């Protein structure tokens, strides 16, 4: 998907924005870009499929198998890593279980940042993304030995990335996607190598493979009521500049389990792109103004002055251009209530 991570955001937000305007069409060739997106969203969430896909983030190539089915109205999914450390992620409805091996570096990272409540803010709170992105169809192509319609999602400014999508002509399933920067450079690519779409899914294909000796972490979404109560906590920090169209999706204060340190967290989205802001007390001996990149995701750390002139470390993480992230990080200000 451009990034795999971007797809679903895209699906939900775009369908929310465009589905209402879709007009039923008998001939596939006559579908509008909006209709293709609505169809893509349905196929991804409601369809059954079992396929192998690759994900390239500009540095590493991962190969995974995804199995998806809806039984009795409940979504069931399984994601299996085919290379590297044995890892599986299973989902039943809103409950996600990660199955990892002891010693997996992912566990170590997990302990650095607490899970906290997950605000489900993305699916509903967005304005029409067409204010910031243009949609256009670009003929057909072939992916996973299937005919695909090509759809471009082009940002209207340079503060966000674009998407190129290949959508299965027959079923609407997303077969390939690219996340591209303003120069057309592919930052992340997702592509099915082979996929079976439709038909019944065998129960055993949805069952975990790495049972013995594995560690299971359960992640679940908070109810919408809990989200309303604590999803948007009043913060003492705010961004004085964000790109046009980005609004705050959630905010929270988390405690680091390893110390008494707390981290203020803000999250913004324009409907497709998402970035997070983390504010912490200045760590001792920290190297400042550091940036990292992984595929389309950047992390930018900047020092800002907080209350009483104390220094704080602001880190902006997201699938946005580096210059945008830096500008946001530099605009973070302390506001006293």
């Amino acid at each position, binding site marked *: 998907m451009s990034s*795999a991570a971007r*797809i*679903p955001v895209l699906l939900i937000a775009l369908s929310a924005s465009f589905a209402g305007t879709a007009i039923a069409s008998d001939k596939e060739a006559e579908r509008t870009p909006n209709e293709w997106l609505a169809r893509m969203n349905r196929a991804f969430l409601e369809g059954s499929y079992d396929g192998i896909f690759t994900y390239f983030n500009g540095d590493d190539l991962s190969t995974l198998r995804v199995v998806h089915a809806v039984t009795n109205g409940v979504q069931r999914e399984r994601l299996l890593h085919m290379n590297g450390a044995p890892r599986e992620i299973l989902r039943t409805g809103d409950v996600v279980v990660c199955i990892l091996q002891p010693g*997996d570096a992912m566990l170590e*990272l997990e302990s650095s940042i607490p899970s906290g409540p997950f605000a489900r*803010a993305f699916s509903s709170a967005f304005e029409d993304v067409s204010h910031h992105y243009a949609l256009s169809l670009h003929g057909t192509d072939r992916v996973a030995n299937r005919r695909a319609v090509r759809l471009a999602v082009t940002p209207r400014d340079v503060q966000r990335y674009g998407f190129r999508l290949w959508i299965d002509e027959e079923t609407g399933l997303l077969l390939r996607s690219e996340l591209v920067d303003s120069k*057309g450079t592919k930052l992340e690519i997702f592509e099915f190598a082979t996929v079976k779409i439709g038909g019944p899914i065998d129960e055993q294909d949805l069952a975990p493979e790495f049972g013995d000796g594995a560690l299971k972490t359960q992640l679940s979404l908070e109810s919408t009521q809990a989200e309303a109560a604590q999803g948007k906590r009043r913060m003492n920090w705010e961004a004085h500049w964000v790109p046009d169209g980005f609004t705050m999706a959630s905010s929270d204060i988390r405690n680091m389990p390893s110390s008494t340190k707390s981290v203020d967290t803000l999250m913004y989205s324009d409907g497709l792109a998402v970035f*997070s802001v983390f504010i912490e007390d200045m760590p001792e001996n920290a*190297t400042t103004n550091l940036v990292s990149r992984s595929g389309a*995701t950047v992390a930018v750390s900047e020092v800002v002055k907080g209350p009483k002139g104390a220094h704080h470390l602001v880190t902006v993480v997201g699938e946005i251009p580096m210059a945008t992230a830096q500008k946001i990080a530099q605009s973070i200000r302390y506001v006293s209530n």
Partner: protein
Amino acid sequence: MSDLLKESLSAVMDGEADDFEMRRALDEASNDPTLRGVWERYHLVRSVMRGEGRAPANSLGNRFWNRIDAGEGADDDVEPALVGPTARRTRWSSGWAQRLAGVAVAVGVAAAVVVGFRTHETAPVETPNVAVVEPSAPPASMALFDDEVRGQAAPAALDVRRSQRAYMLHHARHVALNNRSVVPFVKVAAFESR
């Protein structure tokens, strides 16, 4: 720029130079604008290949991508074989993707030693200058696997880098959990592998 130097630089880019040859080529490159230009173009190709998006607008790197998209293969301007013997050119042409991967590894390892594996202490938006490439990068390390290279990062940057990775993971997981699919979790796992 002498033919000998061109050949040396080509060898460096191909990962075939020994210590002495690499040092000499890089020393010369820093004094020779033409040679430096060639090196910078290779560097751009590496950046673009690695998805770092550093190529300026209308840069060679960008045109290169466009040509790959159009199925035309490598642009002469960015083809390292041009400065090398004919034999190199032939090999390049017969498998540009493989050769380009070699360039990425060669330049990538050198850059990693200096800046700490895709982590930079200065604004990365600017096009990297040839001056940051340390000639002391041992060619023997070019074939290291990612988890071996990881240990070579500058210790001073480790803490912040570790917390940046943790924040990236947190961000990816948050985004993944807020979508009705497990597919985004591929991205969560991707942060572990670096």
